[in-house]
């Protein structure tokens, strides 16, 4: 039975109504009786010693409730901010992470570093008082770029971490890769810069702590992608409250892109301070604070060497990367440039030998952590720029060289030299479709036409792969993760047949309330308007791991399927009893349970009613219809595809216009094609932003953030983007019950390489991101 709100239907997003009519409930919309306002005093210096903090005048200012500092937190036994993933260096030593007090105690390490919290009756009063907090700083030398930080004469950022080196990690076979390079027909060598980005979710980070002295419970409302992880860390490591006395609620959250995974200082401070002061405290970041203190993304300096035989077959690949992790190791900062990066350097290709080494260096900048794609855009950028340039150097068509190297469709499961086991894929099919869609064979004629107008036309590929559906707990545990990465789901029928699904995933724009409801509607025949998806509240939802790494559907959706299986199993028993048949004879399809070979049947709604009004009910079945499942994936999923970008450059100004963009992605099975297309569009916009527009710049001299507002940090806007042409192919994932692979990050992962390959194809010269007009102009003019 087809279901027009089931799997595969482009159902309009159920959640959009409340957003469109202004009824979304974001954090700053919440106000509690007796609420106070928090404002953070932040460091104006990139690196300084705190000689003293004098709050006496500020404490006397109008409306001030209290002013709290790092020593106050230490005195209350509040633990430092942690990194949740352990990385082991080449020499077997664990990564080095400096102690990171939520409020600075003795030193500040970057501009924007949190030093004190001013709590006042109004925000205005808090800000007024913040100006009266007198801090005696003694400036110290600072370092901004990771290459400089890892140099022998660099200023020392943390006393106990010599050379500013957090870890020096490796993966793969160095000897084999070097041997392949030494004996190859051709070696392509490049230095590549993956520019530093600032996430810029539409809703800034915010936190509201509310303490109930009667129950001794703290409720923390915060902009989180993973409220249970927040609760766990704040309880187990920061000792804010025991887990059963801490409730974390992430209500409607306006975008995250990774930046709201992490446990930051501000929410830690608000959760602690609300109990200390016995008043609700709300802090909402101003946009300038977001620029300064949200975890930034990317920031790699890489040297890569790719070895080819005479036919363009890849023989070996060696990558050395310096990753800027900022001044402290954020929650997952250590995993991003290692296991989310080095393990994807195999791309879509057969590569006999791969070696990757990564040095992670501390700098006097904001912490760097996962940002949409997280390690995988960096890997794709290196692989896809290298193979493209290799093709150019060897005079091989860039599509052709990729096809010669693709893992063939009959080779799955395919073990790469960098520990991944790809389950499925059909890379040549995606490439063929993309080439046809963009009319690749007509490119030369289009280029000639552009040249007649004095313009430079270019075309560029990105055949990307990512590891999503993060992740099998045993696998990530063996790689250093401090948590498991399973997901939970609870499918609760109400007596009248409507359903509430509680998911440990968290939607901050992805459309879970629709996609997840489609699964239930499809499998159990419940009209979609009778399916409610509940998420984001540790007081309601079973412990879950949240949303990042394109995992919600592959892991969270699979957990829902597992819970549905339990509902079906129980329903069959109830149907068998009621219809006086054996359980084995009950057939289920889309919420209709029938006795095989008869017209006797019961609907899901009838069964649910019977479960709550069990007057005629099997003796060995519990009443109620409320099933919970936890799902731990068997493997990562491996979405992949080919994107082709076509651009035209004005050599007089250096302006790049994107003329066409074809994206053919293999996301496995697709639940809601419209939402998938939207996710691809959003990812592409961010990837194009990175390649063309976005760049986080700190002044090396002063350590100040120069791109601290939208006047200087350029986010992509609609008129910067072309009309995307998006297609999917659907090779089902073999390791999860939905056969889905995940689509949230693909665009951001793929786009930078495709666009830079197109621009450099047009220019006939290699440049780094972002391809600003001046940079492109210089290249076009040979300057």
């Amino acid at each position, binding site marked *: 039975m087809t279901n027009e709100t089931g799997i595969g239907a482009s159902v309009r997003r159920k959640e959009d109504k409340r957003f469109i009519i202004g009824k979304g409930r974001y954090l700053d919309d919440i106000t509690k009786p007796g609420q106070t306002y928090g404002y953070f005093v932040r460091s104006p210096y990139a690196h300084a010693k705190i000689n003293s903090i004098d709050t006496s005048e500020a404490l006397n200012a109008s409306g001030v409730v209290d002013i709290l500092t790092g020593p106050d937190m230490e005195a209350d036994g509040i633990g430092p901010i942690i990194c949740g993933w352990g990385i082991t260096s080449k020499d077997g030593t664990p990564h080095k992470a400096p102690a990171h007090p939520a409020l600075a105690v003795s030193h500040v390490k970057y501009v924007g570093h949190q030093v004190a919290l001013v709590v006042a009756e109004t925000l*205005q009063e808090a*800000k*007024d008082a913040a*100006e009266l907090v007198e801090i005696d700083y003694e400036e110290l030398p600072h370092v901004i770029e990771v290459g400089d930080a890892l140099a022998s004469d660099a200023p020392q950022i943390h006393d106990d971490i010599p050379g500013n080196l957090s870890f020096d990690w490796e993966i793969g076979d160095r000897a084999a890769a070097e041997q392949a390079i030494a004996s190859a027909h051709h070696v392509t060598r490049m230095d590549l810069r993956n520019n530093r980005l600032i996430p810029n979710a539409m809703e800034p980070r915010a936190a509201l702590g509310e303490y109930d002295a009667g129950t001794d419970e703290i409720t923390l409302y915060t902009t989180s992608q993973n409220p249970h992880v927040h609760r766990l860390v704040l309880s187990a490591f920061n000792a804010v409250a025991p887990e059963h006395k801490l409730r974390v609620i992430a209500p409607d959250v306006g975008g995250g892109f990774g930046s709201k995974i992490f446990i930051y200082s501000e929410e830690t401070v608000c959760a602690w301070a609300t109990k200390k002061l016995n008043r609700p405290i709300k802090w909402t970041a101003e946009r*300038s604070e977001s620029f300064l203190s949200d975890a930034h993304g990317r920031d790699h300096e890489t040297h890569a060497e790719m070895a080819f035989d005479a036919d363009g077959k890849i023989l070996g690949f060696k990558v050395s990367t310096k990753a800027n992790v900022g001044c402290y190791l954020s929650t997952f900062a250590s995993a991003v440039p290692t296991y989310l990066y080095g393990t994807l350097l195999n791309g879509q290709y057969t590569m006999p030998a791969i070696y990757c080494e990564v040095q992670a260096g501390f700098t006097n900048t904001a912490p760097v952590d996962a940002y949409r794609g997280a390690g995988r855009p960096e890997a794709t950028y290196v692989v896809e720029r290298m193979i493209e340039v290799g093709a150019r150097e060897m005079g091989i068509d860039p599509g052709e060289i990729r096809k010669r190297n693709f893992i063939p469709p009959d080779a799955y499961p395919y073990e790469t030299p960098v520990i991944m086991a790809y389950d499925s894929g059909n890379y040549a099919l995606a490439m063929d479709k993309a080439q046809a869609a963009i009319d690749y064979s007509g490119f030369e004629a289009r280029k000639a036409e552009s040249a007649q107008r004095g313009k430079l036309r270019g075309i560029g590929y990105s055949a990307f792969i990512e590891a999503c559906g993060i992740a099998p707990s045993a696998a990530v545990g063996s790689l250093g993760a401090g948590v498991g990465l399973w997901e939970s789901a609870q499918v609760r029928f109400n007596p009248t047949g409507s359903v509430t699904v509680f998911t440990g995933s968290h939607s901050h724009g992805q459309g879970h309330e629709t996609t997840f409801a489609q699964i239930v509607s499809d499998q159990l025949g419940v009209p979609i308007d009778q399916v409610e998806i509940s998420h984001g509240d540790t007081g309601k939802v079973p412990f879950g791991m949240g949303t990042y790494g394109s995992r919600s559907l592959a892991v969270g959706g699979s957990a829902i399927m597992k819970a549905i299986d339990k509902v079906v199993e129980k329903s069959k028993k109830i149907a068998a009893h009621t219809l006086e048949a054996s359980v084995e004879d009950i057939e289920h399809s889309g919420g209709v349970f029938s006795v095989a070979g008869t017209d006797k049947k019961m609907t899901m709604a009838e069964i649910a009613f019977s479960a709550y009004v069990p007057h005629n009910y099997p003796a060995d079945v519990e009443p109620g219809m409320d099933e919970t499942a936890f799902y731990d994936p068997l493997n990562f999923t491996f979405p992949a595809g080919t994107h082709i970008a076509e651009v035209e450059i004005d050599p*007089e*100004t*250096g302006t790049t216009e994107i003329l066409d963009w074809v994206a053919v992605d293999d996301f496995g099975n697709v639940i809601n094609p419209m939402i998938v297309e939207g996710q691809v569009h959003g990812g592409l916009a961010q990837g194009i932003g990175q390649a063309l*527009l976005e760049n986080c*710049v700190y002044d090396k001299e002063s350590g100040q953030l*120069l*791109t601290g507002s*939208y*006047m*200087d*940090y*350029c*986010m992509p806007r609609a008129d*910067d983007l072309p009309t995307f042409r998006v297609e999917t192919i659907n090779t089902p994932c073999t390791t999860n019950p939905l056969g889905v692979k995940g689509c949230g990050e693909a665009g951001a992962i793929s786009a930078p390489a495709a666009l830079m390959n197109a621009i450099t194809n047009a220019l006939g010269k290699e440049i780094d991101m972002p391809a*600003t*007009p*001046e940079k492109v*102009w*210089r290249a076009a003019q040979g300057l």
Partner: protein
Amino acid sequence: MYEFDYKRPGTIDEVAGLLNDDTVLLAGGQTLIPTLKQRLAQPETLVDLSAIESLRGVCPDGDQLAIGAMTTHAEVANKATIPALASLAGGIGDAQVRNRGTIGGSIANNDPAADYPAAVVGLNAVVNTNRRTIAADDFFTDLFETALEEGEIITNVTFPKPEAAAYIKFDNPASRYAIVGVMVAKTSAGIRVAVTGAGPCVFRQAEMEAALSASFTPQALENIAVSADGLNSDIHASAEYRANLIKVLAKRAVVQING
């Protein structure tokens, strides 16, 4: 934002009576309000000009166009009968900015990357104040500096209608201010080429004006070497790149005028 007093007088004379060292005029607020919100300014009193009807409007007057100081960019974009001026106003910021920002506020602020200074100088306009008239060439004096004296209030700007004019702007992709904007105009006072965004303050490109007076063609500009000396250099564009853009945009303006 710090606390301040707010006044909204109905006449220019009342405004003049309120002005002193601790007052600031509020026109469209597109620079002032963000500055206040970031606590970068602490005026005692804000004097809002929005109640003074005589400061508003686009009034064609023979071969001139008078634009009230409090006329929004959107209104100029919709009503100005000088197409290059309308198009310039329509390219400022975004719709929100254009619906609030005013011509008087913009030129009084004299942001080096603002568009209007190129129009005022390029079209040889006259800035009228409550005290006098100031020729465009004398009005913009330096970075964020103008010829306005203490207590002097812009009332309107009079643009002589040019024979033809074009404004070509190269946006800063982030702020959409001009990295470089060039107004080329055939006016009764001769060919004028005004450049904004590139230097500390709008300036005329005399060499180009001379070349175009001899031959109004893009080729006439080909051999002019625009020096990068004294031009702005920042994270978005070097002085050298701005120098290039001045020439490229001037040529494109000429092409546009020549149709």
